[in-house]
């Protein structure tokens, strides 16, 4: 049975309607992953030498131990943003004569195939096998490996659990975020030092091998927790118990704006009343606080570091629109047929989308104006980035959205279709930031930092003034691929 499930997954990967373009992206991501893994292997093999070079006087193994916990802490945060949830369209399988246990077991196994699980193995195992075996003997080294594996698995299943819980209850998102921030701050302000704890912890594994039982228990506990959660939640339809149904009086002010207002209201209701877009928007809003990482005195004072400010500005005034915009039409895939046949010219529809995206950016600009309290020039920088975002990036996003043929199921089931909040999303976001970065650097080296920022803003402004022309262009592109989009969206 498990073999059948694997074969189904394999088939669905190759046969999905958006396989063409999705495939290209996946190959690209695959190549990057391959590169990183091979770099990791080399790094892992050379770790011994590297540590000796960096800190020649101290004990390499001690430094290694001190570093491990750091790694796992960063690992858990990275997994939170980048790890994909393994999903399976569960409905057809639930009715068949398959045990739920088997389905869950399959999912759990499937999820183990992840870059994050492979990376630490490649990085750390060589070192353990060489350096630690040399000093402490094979037995201890083996025990140490078990302990490290325990941590890897524990991280893996904890993140799966947290990510799934997050879908049900946004409180988890906030809680997790606060926890991460607290840990980072605690370490930064030396309230407790992660490296010291790590050192103590992993050295104990070396001296008292039986202690490795604990991480193993830890990982087993995480596994069981995840397992039980899945077992209890493997249902098709959960009532989306949100009482947000009747808050639409707030949106009456949009009535004045005619069709565009109506379309925006439609999208706002979509975001508000469906778990998936709501979660995504909230989750991307957290990245507003990115500013605190970049807007530090070092960057603010030194003009050669201003690119960091620009980077942050683009993210901060654009993150929501980047995330929402890449699935721009997919959100409405359930009723796209209806939208295309109703009395709504496609150009008006697209104009409505433009206004929606730029309003998101405008809202972000207003919200993040508090950064002006740190340094008043940030307001100008953010303004320039905002202009670029609504002038250029909105158009770029809309253009790429016309290539997205993947439907999206808004109804929250425990298992949904491939939830691309993983690497592909982030790669794409990177693209949106690289071009303005190029413009900035160009002018920075030619004429200086302030002018670079101003040029960025001007580019955005000029593009903004050309908006109607861009929309006509996008309409043409959309019409070219309308049929493929409709067909892809019909596939649930």
């Amino acid at each position, binding site marked *: 049975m498990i073999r059948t499930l694997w074969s189904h997954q394999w088939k669905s990967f190759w046969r999905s309607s958006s396989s063409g373009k999705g495939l290209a992206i996946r190959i690209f991501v695959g190549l990057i992953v391959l590169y990183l893994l091979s770099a990791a292997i080399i790094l892992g093999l050379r770790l011994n030498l590297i540590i000796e070079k960096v800190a020649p006087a101290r004990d390499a193994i001690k430094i290694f131990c001190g570093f491990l916990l750091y790694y796992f802490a960063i690992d858990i945060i990275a997994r939170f943003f980048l790890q994909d949830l393994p999903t399976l369209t569960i409905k057809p399988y639930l009715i068949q004569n398959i045990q739920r246990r088997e389905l869950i077991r399959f999912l759990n196994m499937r999820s183990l195939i992840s870059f994050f699980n492979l990376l630490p193995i490649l990085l750390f195992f060589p070192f353990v096998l060489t350096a630690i075996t040399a000093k402490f003997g094979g037995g201890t080294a083996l025990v140490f490996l078990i302990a490290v594996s325990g941590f890897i698995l524990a991280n893996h299943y904890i993140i799966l659990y947290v990510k799934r819980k997050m879908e049900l209850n946004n409180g988890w998102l906030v809680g997790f975020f606060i926890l991460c921030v607290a840990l980072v701050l605690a370490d930064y302000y030396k309230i407790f030092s992660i490296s010291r704890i790590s050192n103590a912890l992993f050295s104990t594994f070396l001296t008292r091998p039986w202690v490795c039982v604990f991480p193993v228990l830890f990982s087993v506990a995480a596994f069981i927790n995840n397992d039980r959660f899945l077992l209890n939640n493997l249902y098709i339809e959960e009532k989306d118990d949100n009482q947000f149904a009747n808050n639409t009086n707030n949106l009456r002010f949009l009535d004045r704006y005619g069709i565009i207002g109506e379309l925006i209201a439609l999208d706002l*209701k*979509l975001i508000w*009343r469906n778990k998936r877009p709501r979660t995504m928007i909230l989750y991307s809003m957290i990245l507003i606080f990115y500013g605190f990482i970049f807007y530090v005195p070092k960057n603010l004072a030194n003009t050669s570091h201003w690119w960091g400010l620009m980077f942050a500005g683009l993210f901060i005034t654009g993150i929501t629109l980047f995330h929402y915009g890449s699935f721009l039409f997919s959100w409405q895939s359930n009723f796209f047929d209806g939208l*295309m046949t109703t009395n709504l010219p496609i150009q008006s529809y697209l104009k409505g989308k433009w206004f929606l995206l730029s309003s998101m950016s405008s809202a972000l600009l207003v919200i993040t104006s508090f950064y002006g309290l740190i340094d008043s020039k940030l307001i100008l920088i953010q303004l320039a980035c905002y202009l670029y975002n609504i002038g250029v990036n909105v158009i770029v996003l809309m253009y790429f959205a016309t290539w997205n043929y993947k439907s999206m199921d808004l109804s929250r089931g425990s298992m949904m279709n491939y939830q691309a909040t993983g690497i592909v999303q982030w790669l794409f976001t990177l693209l949106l930031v690289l071009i303005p970065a190029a413009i900035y650097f160009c002018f920075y080296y030619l004429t200086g930092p302030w002018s670079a920022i101003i040029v960025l803003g001007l580019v955005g402004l000029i593009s903004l003034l050309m908006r109607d022309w861009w929309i006509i262009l996008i309409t043409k592109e959309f019409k070219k691929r309308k049929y493929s989009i409709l067909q892809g969206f019909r596939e649930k």
Partner: protein
Amino acid sequence: MITVQNLIKAYKGIAVVNIPILEIIAGETIGLVGNNGAGKTTLFRLVLDLIRADRGAIFSKGKDVTSTEEWKRYTSAYLDEGFLIGYLTPEEYLFFVGKLNNLSHSDVKERVRVFDRFFDDMVLKPGKFIRDLSKGNQFKLGIAACLLQDPEILILDEPFANLDPTTQLRLIEMLKDWKEQMNMTIFISSHDLNHITKVSSRILLMEKGKIIKDELTSDQTLKDLELYFKV
């Protein structure tokens, strides 16, 4: 009103729609029958420019449906629940459709009153989302949203399939009334031979993508159809 010329749509080399010529005159009620997979829904999708034809064209009021969007102004269709917006309440959906057709909220409210007998209390209950309605009630809403727009062309795919018997009869009545009052061109498909012969002025029988019978409805038509399907 609608002209189909040399229309061919094929999937993997097999033609699922193959119609050399078809003319629909304003005011006709066309009943489309055929077995499953005959190509009825595909034909509707082609008329609504939701699928690209491999060959040929469809003209609405003389203009190719793929080249302009003008037909959207006077055409309403309901094919399946993919035409409704699940997260809106029925009322909100009707207001939305109304807005797209320049109807104010009060206009919509008035026009919807006509459907009071058609809807039961379940449809317009406040606070209920469209996605929570039963399939039949969703269909009722879809049809109402279509008629709200005073279309010149109305396209319905198997409207009788999901409705309870009372509503089926009411729908037949309504279609007859509206046709007379507004001179609407109606294009429906159904598996219910009885109802479709009652409603339609002209019957098209499709088989494997081709129209094999095209005749005005008469007393003989029902018997002919039953004979065809008995085989």
